[in-house]
């Protein structure tokens, strides 16, 4: 038992929670935005892959780290636009289109990566984001290093949670977005075009997904390799259900999830005789459990997955 307390009491463990949570926060916010406006975006896994690749490649070819983040956001928005084009004005199946975007974006990322970096025994690296010490606050024992010794994108992700919650619940734009996900006819009656509103919101959400991917190659690690997203995108889709489509709870869900992940990583090193694969299964199994727990309680946006065509009901 004392081993467990050692892990739970260590600064490193809690510092890791926020680090592991960051791509999940960004991805979950992205999915949340798309679904709040009424569109399921299963392109996330591929969009995160592309964000990870293009962000890394931008920095590797001499751009600075923030240029890399911006490139990832733009790349994400680009694939988001493609997804929106197919699912919103054309009203194609959101499930199949999303999977198509994932397959296309990830294979396209690998193609571009291989073109840029032909073959190498060890993957080339970049200088990643360094943890930023917030003056004074980071000197607080325990809390200081955990909360105020993180990389800049982590702070950005936390700010974005608050910003998104404010936009969604306190601005006319947010009201329109939420309404488009509940009843697009009502939005149209207000003189706002639900088609463009949906396209724009999906692009914004996808930009966040791209940034979530780039966090992995520019802050958590320092190189890109195929299949590095490892289902994080799908986990974000599950987290949005867990969060009942609310930004605050999305943050909570991502943190809880990251806590389990950081905990199992450390547990692996001290518990002997348990195969490591069982620990690695934990995040996926937990996501499924979260879905089961929340399935009946979740307040699904009413118009989710329903294409809008004016004059059609």
């Amino acid at each position: 038992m004392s081993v467990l307390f050692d892990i739970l009491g260590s600064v490193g463990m809690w510092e890791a929670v926020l680090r592991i949570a960051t791509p999940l926060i960004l991805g979950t916010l992205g999915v949340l935005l798309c679904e709040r406006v009424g569109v399921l975006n299963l392109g996330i896994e591929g969009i995160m892959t592309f964000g990870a690749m293009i962000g890394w490649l931008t920095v590797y070819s001499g751009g600075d780290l923030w240029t890399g983040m911006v490139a990832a956001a733009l790349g994400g928005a680009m694939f988001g636009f493609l997804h929106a084009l197919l699912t919103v004005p054309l009203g194609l199946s959101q499930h199949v289109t999303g999977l198509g975007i994932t397959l296309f974006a990830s294979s396209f990322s690998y193609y571009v990566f291989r073109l840029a970096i032909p073959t190498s025994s060890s993957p080339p690296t970049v200088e990643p984001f360094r943890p930023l010490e917030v003056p004074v606050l980071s000197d607080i024992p325990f809390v200081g290093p955990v909360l105020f010794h993180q990389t800049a994108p982590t702070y950005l992700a936390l700010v974005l949670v608050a910003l998104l919650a404010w936009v969604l619940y306190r601005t006319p734009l947010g009201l329109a977005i939420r309404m488009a996900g509940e009843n697009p006819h009502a939005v149209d009656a207000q003189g706002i075009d639900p088609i463009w509103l949906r396209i724009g919101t999906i692009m914004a959400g996808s930009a966040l997904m791209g940034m979530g991917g780039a966090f992995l190659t520019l802050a958590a690690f320092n190189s890109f390799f195929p299949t590095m997203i490892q289902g994080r995108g799908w986990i974000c889709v599950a987290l949005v259900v867990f969060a009942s489509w609310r930004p605050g709870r999305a943050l909570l869900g991502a943190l809880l999830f990251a806590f389990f992940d950081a905990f199992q990583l450390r547990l692996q090193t001290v518990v002997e005789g348990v195969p490591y694969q069982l620990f690695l299964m934990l995040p996926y199994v937990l996501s499924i459990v979260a879905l089961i727990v929340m399935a009946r309680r979740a307040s699904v946006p009413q118009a989710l997955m329903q294409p809008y065509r004016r004059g059609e009901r």
Partner: protein
Amino acid sequence: MRFERRDHPSRLVTVLAPIGAILAALVVAGVLIAIAGANPFRAYALILKGAFGSRLGFSETLTRATPLILTGLAAAVAFRARLWNIGGEGQFYLGALAVPALGMIPAFAALPGPMVMVACLVVGAVAGMILLLIPLGLRLKFGVDEVVTTLLLNFVAVLFVSLMIEGVLKDPLAFGWPQSVPVPDHAVLPKLMDRSRLHAGLLIAVGMAIFVWWLQSRTVFGMRARAAGLSPRAAAFAGVPLGRTLIAVACLSGGLAGLAGAIEVMGVKGYVTTDLSPSYGYSGIVIAMLANLNPIGVIAAALFSAVMFVGADSMSRALSIPSYIADVTVALSLLTMLVAIFLAQYRVRR
């Protein structure tokens, strides 16, 4: 500009849709090849030559198409009933793992040869079924969307395979490499062509496509599955037992994906590793859509994908274009096919 539903989509347009979709995907991929500094026409000529130009290439293409036909069918039967089985990859792996696992049972090894083979195929299919019945059960019991759960279970399945082949199923003679014990001798599928990897699994795959076609167009089950997909409420009102129909569809779909894994390990590899599948499960989704969920069309769509994958391997060696271009083209053809189906059903009005 707006879209108007056609009352009667013309037959011709429906048939031309996949061809147009593939051409459009090839044009976009061609631009990507040109950007990489190679001549796209030469690249495509090399792909065709690699896939068909030699006895070896041709047999490889058919070998590659075999699991793709089965995973394509798995997705097609599920999607037709609006059961979103995206877990073909995981079901494929569990189906493959079931074969060496069965071989570990001593009593089983004493069975006569043909029975061993049939038992392995059946057990592989059952393993795939079980993995799909879990998410279906969660959907029927708790209302959990099966898209995300089947996706997540893919990762669990591969980790489970890794656990087994580093544990009880580990081959002690593999110099420490994580791979399973070999499949039982009697379970190795006979070759269709000597000096090639082409095996009898191709016949099983084509046979299954015909079987699924018969099932869907000539039986009550087929009609019920279709009705359940088109409109669950109307189907329930007409007396279709929705739950039971979906369970049967899941058994068929998961079974086909599991069978794909069993056949791949019995026909080609002989043992299980965690890189047995170059995402056959996910490619199955593309193939099912390209075929417009038609079981016979799945054979053609699987051949197209197999040509791209096998051909791109040899093309990439000659032109130093990454062979990922095949994945890009296949993924793109899914998106273009969706648009093509749409255009076949709607007309554009100004």
